């Protein structure tokens, strides 16, 4: 199934690229992130995931959120400074 991703936190996702990808049916947010790392040949350090925030189709999501055909996933990060 096709799913789209946009990274708003390019600093912590290395060479992972925005785009539309063909991923297995029944994939979760975590599955999609694993897939993207595999595609890029890069493993994101575990601590970088601490500050990541996921939104799928405009709604907040977790790593175990199921994706459906045409899903649009945004990967943001916590912006907490003041």
């Amino acid at each position, binding site marked *: 199934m096709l799913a789209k991703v946009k990274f708003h936190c*390019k600093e912590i996702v290395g060479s992972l690229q925005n785009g539309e990808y063909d991923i297995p049916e029944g994939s979760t947010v975590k599955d999609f992130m694993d897939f993207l790392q595999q595609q890029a040949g890069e493993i994101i350090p575990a601590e970088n995931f*601490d500050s990541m925030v996921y939104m799928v189709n*405009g709604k907040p999501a977790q790593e175990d959120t199921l994706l459906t055909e045409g899903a649009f996933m945004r990967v943001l*990060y*916590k*912006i*907490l*400074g*003041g």
Partner: protein
Amino acid sequence: MGRYERNHPAISENEQEKLQKSRVFVAGCGGLGGYILEFLVRIGVGHITACDGDTFAPSNLNRQLLSAVPLLGVSKAKTAAMRAADVNPEVEVSARECFITEENAAELISGHDLVIDALDNGNARHILAKEAKKQGIPMVSGGISGWAGRVFVLMPEDEIPDYLWLGPAGTMRGNLGFTAACCASVQAAEAVKVLIGRGEILHGRMLEFDLKTSEFEDIPLDLTK
């Protein structure tokens, strides 16, 4: 008209009066708060509470407008009130020298028309947003990290987007002066729009910017249950 002459006609005389009668609570007088207070004082928001339990430290000097070498160790909230008196004595700025806690949030924000989040941690934002919602007060939220910033407005009927604030914060990316100024500018503009009831506010969406790539994006933000 004098000092507010250049506010017009961008802001009408009627709207200027609305601002003069408004009561705004600014939580945090640091990187964001310093600039926000400067803008609100200069534009003529009549009553402002500047709240911060902190004093100035050397690490503030790279970005905090209110900070200066002779003010190291001095209260940020008190400095904000003193600065306001110098810039615009027609505006009343009260200093509250404390941090936002579960115990004091209710009393601190009571009686205000608007709350502005210029805080530096997710827990305090959560407490502030919860209390603002309880008291029916809109909140303009802002945050910065390195070159990036984010602003949105919460109305009392909204679900609080805690997922943007709570949990591990991740690696520190630093806080740059121009990032703070940019974010604070947007927050001040949002505050004025909410107070005068005009303009399209960042409600149901958030403005996220990255000054490193010069990208500004309007991202839908679902605040429904």
